[in-house]
């Protein structure tokens, strides 16, 4: 696949990702802002939207994998998200349509990003990263009460058309998974537990300074950069080295220094480095099932998020809980990556660097 095709695809899908997440968030918050403004309603809408958008992705991913239609799925998802902005008179229906559209887009785009450079975390990281930026922009627009649907609809329709027009990727042929299948479920389970724990921590952190718009933008950029650079650095320096060290350093920063914006923002950046690495490792465990792998990570995210929607949040927000959770996440991720490297890896170099003399040999 030529670099031009890769660059075109990743640029279009990344921007579309930000747009889809922005529209979903704007619709969600605008429903309340333009209506009663009851914060309880917003909380419930968020739960319904999140559960639908995240939990349905494994099944939708399987369908995308089976029919090999990631671009069409992404375009359909964008159309559904656009349609949801016209259904705000019926909030429940609008949220359901937006959630399903969001899920279909994410698995479609996820499959494309995973297949642009199979076995590499760089491009999936770049695809996933702008979502946080879209969420922030959409949330601000929705809350402002100035949400107007048609610009979003036009942008979504234009992006959907672009996705269908750009050169399609060649879906990599499903390769055999090398190695001892005895550890198959263990590796997948460890990676998913790591994702779920990170979800609990991410949603439990109390960052009171987020109300400052400048700091909110800085925080969002830290998430975006963390996810984007996590893949690049992981491919360069080794997945385990980047993901595990990032999480280890982030643990004390997030657990004990969350009230200090500069330290917490650095912690959030490091915390997000592991995201694309976990995703790609899982996709490598399931060759030819990129959509399913992508969906499994979002299922783990929503399972991890569920306790934070309940009164248990008072527990999960405790400093010691955050610290211990991140360390457990580190342990599961480290063991998962080691087992993957030892038993299944046929692409990841055992040592990311080769000395000059080794290369000569």
């Amino acid at each position: 696949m030529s670099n031009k095709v890769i660059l075109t695809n990743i640029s279009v899908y990344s921007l579309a990702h930000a747009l889809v997440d922005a529209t979903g968030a704007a619709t969600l918050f605008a429903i309340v802002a333009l209506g009663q403004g009851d914060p309880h309603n917003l909380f419930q809408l968020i739960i319904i939207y999140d559960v639908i958008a995240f939990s349905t992705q494994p099944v939708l991913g399987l369908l995308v994998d089976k029919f090999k239609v990631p671009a069409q799925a992404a375009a359909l998802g964008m159309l559904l998200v656009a349609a949801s902005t016209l259904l705000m008179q019926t909030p429940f229906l609008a949220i359901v349509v937006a959630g399903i559209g969001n899920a279909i887009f994410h698995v479609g785009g996820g499959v494309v990003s995973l297949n642009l450079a199979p076995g590499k975390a760089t491009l999936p990281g770049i695809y996933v990263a702008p979502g946080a930026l879209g969420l922030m922009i959409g949330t601000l627009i929705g809350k402002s009460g100035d949400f107007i649907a048609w610009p979003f609809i036009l942008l979504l329709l234009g992006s959907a058309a672009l996705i269908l027009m750009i050169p399609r990727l060649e879906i990599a042929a499903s390769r055999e998974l090398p190695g001892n299948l005895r550890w198959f479920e263990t590796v997948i389970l460890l990676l998913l537990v790591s994702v779920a724990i990170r979800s609990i921590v991410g949603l439990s952190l109390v960052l009171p300074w987020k109300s400052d718009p400048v700091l909110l933008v800085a925080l969002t950029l830290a998430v975006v950069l963390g996810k984007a650079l996590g893949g690049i650095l992981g491919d360069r320096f080794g997945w385990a080295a980047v993901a595990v060290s990032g999480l280890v350093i982030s643990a004390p920063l997030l657990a004990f220094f969350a009230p200090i914006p500069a330290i917490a923002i650095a912690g959030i950046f490091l915390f997000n480095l592991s995201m694309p690495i976990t995703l790609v490792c899982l996709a490598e465990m399931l060759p030819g099932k990129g959509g399913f792998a992508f969906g499994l990570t979002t299922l783990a995210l929503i399972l991890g998020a569920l306790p934070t929607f309940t009164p248990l949040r008072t527990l999960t927000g405790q400093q010691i809980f955050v610290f211990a959770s991140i360390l457990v996440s580190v342990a599961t991720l480290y063991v998962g990556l080691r087992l993957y490297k030892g038993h299944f890896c046929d692409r990841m170099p055992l040592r990311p660097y080769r000395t000059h003399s080794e290369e000569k040999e």
Partner: protein
Amino acid sequence: MKTGFLQLLGVILISVLPARIVSLDIALPPTDVVPPSTLLLGLSLGVLAALCGLVVVVALVAFFVLRAIKKNRATKE
């Protein structure tokens, strides 16, 4: 005026916290029938159960798909 099912769901939203039912009657046309509180409670619990059920069902499907993938690969070997 007859209230459709989706309209009704648009009006009713569930709360995770117990004993709290919140109305979401946003920009909806006024209805001349107020649903009885038991119906509201039932629908609220129904939506909550549906969401939890959705997550559980998808998790089970994912589990069985993973087992099938492993079995398929083991057979090939």
